[in-house]
């Protein structure tokens, strides 16, 4: 069981991060933002940054920091929210999201000064980079872990499976992938687009697999992450987290339309009201 204090902290931070996502996306105006993909992953990202990872916002290049790779880069709002709430970036910087002169682009762009580890957005690649980082830690006998957030639609990409098989061959048990299984990708539901049993695929590739039913429940997510972090089974680990796309905002939940779009004022007001009453 995850410690109650940590669960409370992650829940509190997750609520703040949801609000940050809405604020940043709204501030981006007509440029729009990927709301649904960020909101489904909030508990996972908050759990990592506030309950699991060894990291120091004052020292983003600390050698023994745990690494976080957000392979599903279009969900960068969740990442930027975590960087804000942990103090890697200021609130003022947060509000520059997607601005003309901002380093907070529509997809994460590597920037070690502010804790952005890997450029991502061309889906699939980030995960393979994470595998290479985990292998490097093994070669150097470093103890840190590599955490990688992957989309369930992203698992369509061939490179995911090339990398997964490779990671198992190299016995990268310092690597923990989390699949944000929200069931909706861009042009349809994951089921409609390609109905595959990804649990079986990850197992067949040689990974330790755990399915978390409550992927938007801080306690369940933390428990799974801790279990994987503390296991040295010789296999890489994957948590398949069942989440809700757009979690927390009624009109975004499970919606295709809120994958990426601008947020008009009336929707913003409704979203804020829902978060405040949550």
């Amino acid at each position, binding site marked *: 069981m995850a410690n109650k204090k940590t669960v409370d902290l992650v829940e509190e931070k997750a609520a703040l991060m949801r609000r940050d996502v809405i604020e940043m996306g709204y501030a981006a105006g007509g440029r729009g933002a990927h709301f649904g993909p960020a909101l489904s992953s909030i508990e996972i990202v908050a759990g990592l940054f506030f309950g699991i990872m060894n990291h120091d916002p004052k020292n983003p290049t600390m050698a023994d920091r745990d690494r976080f790779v957000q392979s599903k880069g279009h969900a960068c709002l969740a990442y930027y929210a975590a960087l804000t709430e942990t103090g890697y970036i200021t609130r003022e910087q947060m509000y520059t999201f997607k601005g003309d*002169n901002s380093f907070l682009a529509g997809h994460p762009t590597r920037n070690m000064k502010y804790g952005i580890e890997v450029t991502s957005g*061309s889906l699939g690649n980030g995960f393979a980079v994470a595998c290479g980082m985990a292998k490097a830690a093994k070669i150097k006998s470093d103890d840190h872990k590599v955490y990688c957030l992957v989309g369930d*639609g992203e698992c369509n990409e061939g490179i995911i499976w090339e990398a997964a098989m490779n990671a198992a061959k190299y016995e990268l048990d310092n690597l923990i992938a989390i699949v944000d299984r929200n069931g909706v*990708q861009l042009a349809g539901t994951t089921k409609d687009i390609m109905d595959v049993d990804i649990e079986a695929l990850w197992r067949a590739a040689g990974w330790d697999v755990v399915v978390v039913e409550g992927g938007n429940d801080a306690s369940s997510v933390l428990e799974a992450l801790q279990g994987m972090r503390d296991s040295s089974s010789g296999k890489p680990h994957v948590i398949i987290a069942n989440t809700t796309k757009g979690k927390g905002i009624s009109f975004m939940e499970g919606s295709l339309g809120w994958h990426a779009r601008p947020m008009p004022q009336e929707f913003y007001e409704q979203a804020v009201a829902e978060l405040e009453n949550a």
Partner: protein
Amino acid sequence: MEIVKRPHVENFIEWSKDKPEVVVLTADLTNSSEVGKWRDTYPDRFFPMKMAEQNMMSFAAGLAREGYTPFIHTFAVFIYRRPYDQLAMSIAYPKLPVRFVAFLPGIATPGGVTHQAIEDVAIMRATPNMTVLETGDATEVESVLDVAHSVDGPVYIRMLRGEVPRLFPKAEPMRLDEVRVLSEGDDVTVLTAGITTEEAVRAAAPLAAAGVGMKHLHVSTHKPFGDPVVLDAILGARHGVITLENHTIIGGLGSAVAELMAENAIGKKLVRLGLQDTYAHGASQAYLMKEYGLDAPALVRAVEKLTGRATGITEPDLDAVRIEAVHSLAKAEAL
């Protein structure tokens, strides 16, 4: 200027009506590639290939080998970067009639480096058997399908979506390997393609008023590149030639012109405006065009340098920029 909302959507549906061999493939970018309505109209000819671009290429090759004409629709970067080997070996080498409809060319997206196709023309030009087209307005978006269909082999199309201006009359469709002459003059020859054409058009009147003769050619076929009008225009340019492209200056329009000049022993100055061998960052199109020197003011400065003549033209003298709403209802999402 007329602004056309999503010219590809209805036009492609109508065009496909009597062409049962035409099939459409996408990789989880259906509405984003403006084929949502096409799918609903011809569900039996539409193949969602999930988000798996490599497989999509070789699968399309299989369809093409058996007599179908696949129109692959997705963002440009996802056509020529990840699945290039499949594109080259399964499609280009056997010269199969696959059409690549590539959206978000160059810096026409705030999506950042992962979504900016800044070297696609270079790579596609270097690919044997490939024909390379680029649309610059609504008329070309509408007529590029006929051009592509007339080609016996693979065709790469830099495509525009959302709100697209109509710069050229509907009655003057795109033609294979034919440039359009948009202004006459014998001081400098300027070649543009795609979204940079509008920039040179903005500069045309002020330059003429300042007494500078600009011959402006709009290019919609990058390969083949054999229209004799281009060579004539280069020969007739007193001070030299300027290319302005939404692409890195290596391997694209500027390089095509350089090759042509060298092969014809034309000893004139050539200025290549475009991304100067750099990736771009994420920002609005207007901002990036200014930052990287792809806009009308950058062109005016280059003309001044080449002619050695100060024009006195300042930004307010240039026709207003047509700022496209980065997002509008015409676009599937703000990328």
